[in-house]
């Protein structure tokens, strides 16, 4: 086990961790604002991956440019889901909401199976061939780009939430729904917008990884579980928590793969998950639980 190999894994872990952060931030928005545990988050990311894939295959669009398509499409998808399926049960017991999003994810995943077959699809792009070499360490361009895109997405979202009117309305609605309504904020509409934004985050993350990750209907499953671990680790409702949590989990998983046999690398994430749930359920950065 030489140092360059460990270092290589560390870097790869950090790079994919950035993507986890973006996915988790989207999930976090939905939970933070509406207290909805969105099981369908992974399938939304999967939709983003397919959008990218088809944009490249059918229209020859550059995979990174396709993000311009992904954002509005996923936003609309998320908004529609919230408006028509989730809003009606906004006051139902929590487990029913969880079950509903589970149902949505089942539907989306298998709709993808039905439409596009369960086969793994690999996006062949020129970008995937490019690697940077530093001595014994190789870093692939597409992973760096995925990381950068996730960082950009995170920053943009942060600015949206802190500087814009919509952002302020969202934060108001999440902290004090009744108070927000009193000052004239249409809370239901804010929920719709928030879900849309959360979905768009998942979609962008999907487009970011499509150049190096195989695209298939159940790929979302991997990411949604990781996203939950990140959100719980960082603290439900905490933006910063989701950001750092993503990086931490990315590295933890990568290190796990170095020292544990292949099939067991996700064990690390789950053990962390359980420990946090039991001993610090509010997460590393979470204030209120």
């Amino acid at each position, binding site marked *: 086990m030489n140092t360059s190999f460990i270092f290589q894994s560390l870097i790869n872990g950090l790079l994919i961790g950035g993507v986890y952060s973006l996915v988790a931030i989207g999930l976090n928005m939905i939970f933070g604002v509406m207290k909805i*545990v969105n099981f369908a988050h992974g399938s939304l990311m999967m939709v983003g991956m397919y959008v990218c894939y088809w944009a490249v295959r059918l229209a020859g669009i550059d995979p990174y440019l396709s993000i311009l398509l992904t954002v509005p499409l996923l936003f609309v998808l998320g908004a529609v889901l919230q408006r028509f*399926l989730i809003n*009606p*049960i906004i*006051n*139902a*017991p*929590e*487990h*029913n909401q*969880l*079950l*509903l999003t*589970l*149902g*949505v*994810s*089942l*539907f*989306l*995943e*298998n*709709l993808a*199976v*039905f439409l596009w*077959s*369960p086969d793994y699809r690999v996006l062949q792009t020129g970008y995937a061939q490019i690697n940077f070499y530093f001595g014994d360490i190789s870093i692939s361009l597409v992973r760096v780009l995925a990381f950068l895109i996730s960082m950009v997405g995170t920053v943009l979202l942060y600015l949206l939430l802190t500087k814009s009117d919509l952002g302020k309305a969202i934060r108001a609605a999440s902290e004090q729904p009744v108070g927000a309504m009193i000052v004239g904020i249409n809370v239901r509409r804010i929920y719709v917008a928030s879900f849309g934004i959360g979905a768009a985050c998942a979609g962008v993350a999907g487009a970011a990884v499509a150049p190096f990750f195989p695209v298939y209907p159940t790929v979302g*499953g991997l990411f949604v*579980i990781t996203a*939950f671990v990140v959100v*719980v680790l960082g603290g439900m409702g905490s933006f910063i928590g989701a950001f750092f949590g993503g990086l931490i989990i990315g590295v933890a998983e990568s290190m796990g793969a170095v020292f*544990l*046999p*292949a*099939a*067991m690398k*996700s*064990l690390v994430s*789950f*053990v962390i*998950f*359980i420990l946090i*749930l*039991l*001993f610090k*359920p509010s997460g590393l950065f979470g204030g209120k639980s």
Partner: protein
Amino acid sequence: MSAGADKKRYLGRSLGPRAWMCVLSGVVVLHFLPWFWPSVIHTMIMIFLFAIMGQGWNVLSGYAGQFSFGHSLFFGMGAYTSSLLYIKGGLTPWLGLPVAMALSALVGVFVGFLSFRYELKGPFFALIMLAFAEIFHIIAMGWEWVGGARGILIPLQGDVWTLMQFTSKRPFYFLSLWLTVGSLYLVWKMEGTRMGLYFQAAREDQDAAEALGVNSFRYRQIAMAISAAMTAAGGTVYAQYLLYIDPDTTFGVLNSVEIMLRPIIGGPGTVLGPLLGSLVLTPLSEVTRIALQAYSGAYLMFYGAILVAVIIFLPDGLMGLVQGAANRLRGRKS
């Protein structure tokens, strides 16, 4: 569970003694099925096995209100325990079955101890169950001794009833039928006991129940143990029926979904819910599998749509419909 006045409907019995007699007469009829309609035996076995496991979930999640997203944990424990005991130790699955149930209950109580002690509720409990199921999934995948990713192929012995292996499907049909009846009976009895009421009390309002002296931690653990054991029983019979298990089909997340969908669609917190749900969902998956042909996994699309529809329009599941109709027939207002 719906809020408000409907709550009262499912406190206490969901099935009166007369209705139970009807169920039993239905069971008698089912005994003749293998001779009149042999082509559906496999489907019926699957319906029964998932009804049993769904009933297990129902005890913990429907009655005691602790929604678990990781019941495949117990299914896998059941399937692997009895299979390993047979392959490594030559123990007949008939004895392996109670051992699997006990071991599964132990695992459940362990998880329960961690979760209930730390007061995990709602989605957090659901997720921790999922996490534990996934941990066992990963371990089963990576651990050579239990077969790893290849799983366990139980050697074919032919018709050896002492080893729970039969060349015909009929013995499995009757075995699963009787286990289903057993699980229905158990839950039916439990509904009327104090324990059953305590489960439901802790579910509806934990603080009020505790104030009245109900030790919700203890009753949750009991519910968990029963739940785990029941689901494990289904796992053992499943393993012997198919003679092949692997980490994906036993501990996989999809299995948790299959197990819990049945009582949710059928009616959580009711005796017949899991069976009703199974009677609807299992044939649906078989039919859509044949109709869609190309990708048989796509039947899950319908599962997803049905789940969404049930949550929005029928939160009490099919039993809610049945109960509503029964009440109207009796002229009772809800």
